[in-house]
């Protein structure tokens, strides 16, 4: 068992699907932060069999929880202070996501109108369906930023 030291102050993203920590690292723009990040892949998990974990030594305010909730709202967010978990933040599917994903409908106004925000609205929580605010096209892609 590999040991990664505890962080003093920051947050830990637990229960990431195995293999998804690196894409998540970029989606959350953690590569742009000047702080210590540990990426743990394929850790043993009773619940998931295998899981990934991200340990980030910076303030939780640097994390866009809406983007994280959109990508995978089953991820656990543990906020660490003084090497202890002080809060577990529950993720939810955001009602609206802005400039995270793009509408792929070529007939949508977002394909030609300059500087228009790409806005998607949660239209069905059960099926986790997001639709473009403008053309109502269902987002079919993977839940990844881009």
């Amino acid at each position, binding site marked *: 068992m590999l040991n990664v030291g505890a962080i003093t102050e920051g947050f830990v993203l637990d229960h990431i699907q195995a293999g998804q920590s690196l894409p998540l690292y970029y989606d959350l723009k953690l590569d742009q932060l000047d702080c210590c990040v540990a990426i743990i892949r394929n850790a043993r998990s009773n619940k998931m069999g295998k899981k990934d974990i991200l340990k980030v030594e910076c303030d939780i305010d640097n994390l866009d929880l809406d983007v994280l909730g959109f990508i995978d709202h089953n991820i656990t967010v543990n906020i660490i202070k003084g090497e202890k978990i002080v809060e577990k933040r529950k993720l939810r599917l955001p009602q609206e996501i802005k400039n995270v994903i793009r509408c792929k409908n070529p*007939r949508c*106004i977002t394909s030609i*109108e300059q500087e228009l925000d790409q806005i998607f609205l949660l239209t069905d929580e059960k099926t986790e369906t997001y639709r473009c605010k*403008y053309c*109502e096209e*269902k987002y079919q892609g993977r839940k990844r930023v881009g």
Partner: protein
Amino acid sequence: MRHLMSPLDLSIEELDKLLTLANDIEKNPEKYSHACEGKKLATCFYEPSTRTRLSFEAAMLNLGGSVLGFSSADSSSAAKGESVSDTIRVISCYADICAMRHPKEGAPLVASQRSGIPVINAGDGGHQHPTQTLTDLLTIRSLKGRLDNLTIGLCGDLKFGRTVHSLIHALIRYPKIKFILISPEELRIPDYIREDVLSRNGVPFQEVERLEDAMADLDILYMTRVQKERFFNEDDYVRMKDFYILDKKKMSLARDDMIVMHPLPRVNEISVEVDDDPRAAYFKQAQYGVYVRMALILTLLEVEVC
């Protein structure tokens, strides 16, 4: 300030009020003939549409108002690359209300976010055409006396026809609505309407291929045109375009109080011999389109007529 982007923007109560106003306009046109004096309607049509544009213009002229606008993107500043957001900001300085048709889906919504005047979606690509739905609802309520307890046959292109999709969305809000979906296999209603809209809301429906099998059960037959522009393959279009032709023989299978509707233009799907049948309601439907647009303009401009 309110806009109209989708027929579902209006609650059932608001819709009822609007349709009642449209019926009053029909009965007392004189009462409303000066209601919008001094007001201007801008018709911003980025793609050609004779019927809808003229219906809007007729509506505003009937109310004593005036109209200005353009009827294709070539004759507007869009040809110079101006955005919809900028265009509507300028139009807001010239007119009191705007009806916008645009080939891009969601363009009228973008306009409404930047507009200083009410914007009416007059059709945005294959997305929404709310004033057609309001026209259909007014026609049904006026000729059948109700919007509930109806069996509606939707016939033809149920796959691409936004008119029938919008009508389904609007009618399932009323009790005891049943649909008979009449189409060839290739043009059946999309899964998301069948499952997410009809099944999920417990709305009874059946799908048939032969028009003759449905005729006797219908209160309303809503015919649609198979649109050439929706097909990639000419052969498929040729095979589908004359799949349904409503004629006197098929009309003989229908009830005496059934009505036939069509958003127009028709091509071959309704034989001209049906036009003289008292159950043919499609030209009345075009007239109701003017009344409902008059009612909509009055409502969005908050003009009260005593």
